[in-house]
């Protein structure tokens, strides 16, 4: 017993050191649980209020570029409105070009009233939010938003901005939420490449789906892998989301191809993608709620368990 006490007096400091390092190391390894823990979210409420104050001050200094960004977005939206108006006109036959009747896929329910249904994969609702804390210098970056559970934000919702894909909500507290952006080495986005229309027609429908990951380092570029070597791509081709994951809707812009070369010893390309979102100056984002996610996930999970 005496020797045990002696041992602790002599080596206690080393044991204490190892204990603290052990706790830290455990947290590092258990990474994802950390952000979801209630202790963290309650502490984050406090620190996020601090970030909110800082954001309030510093946003004044960015008003100029924010206005510019909004103006640009207005122009884009207006163009889109014109485009859609034209399409509507055309479909109505108002300009005498041709008459087309649109037929939605009809669903007849048991109680015999037929409902016109939209494409279930397109049923999204949208919340706007502001970025109040944002890192780009780490390998695992996170973004904090000023909207939380009480505003309708839930885990796994997708986040986009005027530029394109931002990330996925990974933790929510009452008034704030944390987003895992593309600039996080753990994030993977299923993407496809929009090739030239001519190329596409001559080659038929090519499956050019790959996944986008961020290798760290420069926050302007990410890497796209798993694109087969036979796919014709060129510098400047646009990369958009594939819609295959249950996070993002199809066709949200991700970036453009900067350079590419065959990956070592296999049949795929290594593609360097210039991200269209400027993460270091991110201010306003939109959080998308995919209404049918639960349904889709449940069905997929059910199929998977039945197959086993």
């Amino acid at each position, binding site marked *: 017993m005496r020797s045990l006490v002696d041992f602790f007096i002599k080596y206690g400091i080393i044991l204490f*050191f190892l204990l*603290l390092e052990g706790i*830290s190391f455990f947290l590092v390894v258990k990474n994802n649980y*950390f952000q979801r823990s209630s202790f963290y979210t309650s502490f984050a409420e406090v620190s996020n209020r601090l970030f909110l104050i800082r954001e309030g001050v510093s946003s004044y200094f960015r008003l100029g570029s924010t206005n510019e960004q909004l103006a640009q977005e207005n122009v884009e939206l207006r163009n889109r409105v014109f485009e859609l108006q034209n399409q509507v006109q055309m479909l109505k036959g108002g300009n005498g070009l041709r008459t087309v009747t649109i037929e939605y896929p009809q669903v007849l329910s048991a109680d015999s009233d037929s409902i016109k249904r939209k494409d279930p994969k397109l049923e999204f609702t949208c919340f706007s939010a502001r970025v109040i804390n944002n890192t780009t*210098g780490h390998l695992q970056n*996170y973004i904090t938003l000023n909207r939380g559970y009480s505003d309708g934000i839930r885990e796994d919702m997708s986040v986009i901005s005027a530029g394109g894909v931002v990330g996925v909500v990974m933790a929510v507290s009452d008034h704030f939420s944390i987003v895992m952006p593309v600039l996080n080495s753990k994030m993977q986005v299923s993407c496809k490449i929009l090739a030239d229309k001519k190329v596409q027609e001559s080659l038929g429908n090519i499956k050019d789906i790959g996944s986008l990951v961020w290798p760290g380092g420069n926050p302007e570029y990410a890497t796209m892998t798993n694109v087969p070597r036979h796919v014709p791509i060129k510098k400047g081709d646009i990369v958009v989301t594939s819609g295959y994951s249950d996070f993002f809707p199809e066709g949200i812009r991700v970036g453009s191809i900067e350079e590419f070369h065959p990956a070592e010893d296999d049949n795929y390309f290594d593609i360097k993608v210039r991200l269209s979102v400027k993460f270091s100056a991110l201010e306003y984002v939109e959080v998308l709620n995919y209404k049918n996610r639960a349904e889709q996930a449940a069905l997929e999970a059910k199929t998977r368990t039945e197959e086993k």
Partner: protein
Amino acid sequence: MNANPLRYLLFFVVLVLVQVLTLNNVHLFGYASPYLYIWFIILLPYATPRYLTLFLGFLLGAILDLMNATPGIHAFATTLAAGVSILALPYFMPHEDERDRVHIIPSMRSLGIGAFVKYSVLIVFVHHFALYAIEAFSFNHFFHLFFRVIVSTLFTLLLILSLEYFKMKR
């Protein structure tokens, strides 16, 4: 700075705020950030109980982790730096007998400019190396990692040493 615990508490809070609210947003060459908060460990008095030094290191890192949403990374690095500071500080002390040493708080004046710079380089390097290595969790891109550590270390040292120099001249 004298060894008044209240002043250290204030210093702790100010360093955390400065780090989280401003310095975390500075990325030199896109990816090297200064981590000024490690200054707190460097300035702990020689007479600080060893358990307290380790605990304060852990606490400092843990708070940074909570604010940055980076679990355990800062806590690991600061605890390691605190451990190294316990072992290394005696070697950088001027040769006086133990009774005088008890009152020493590391600074350019008390240790001498040369010794203080060497001590700071050691602590900052150990901290930054641990921080970046555990963040990357691999030595796969060792030279890239090493480059980040070096640039960051120089950046942090520049801040600490210039602030210390002003303190000495004042």
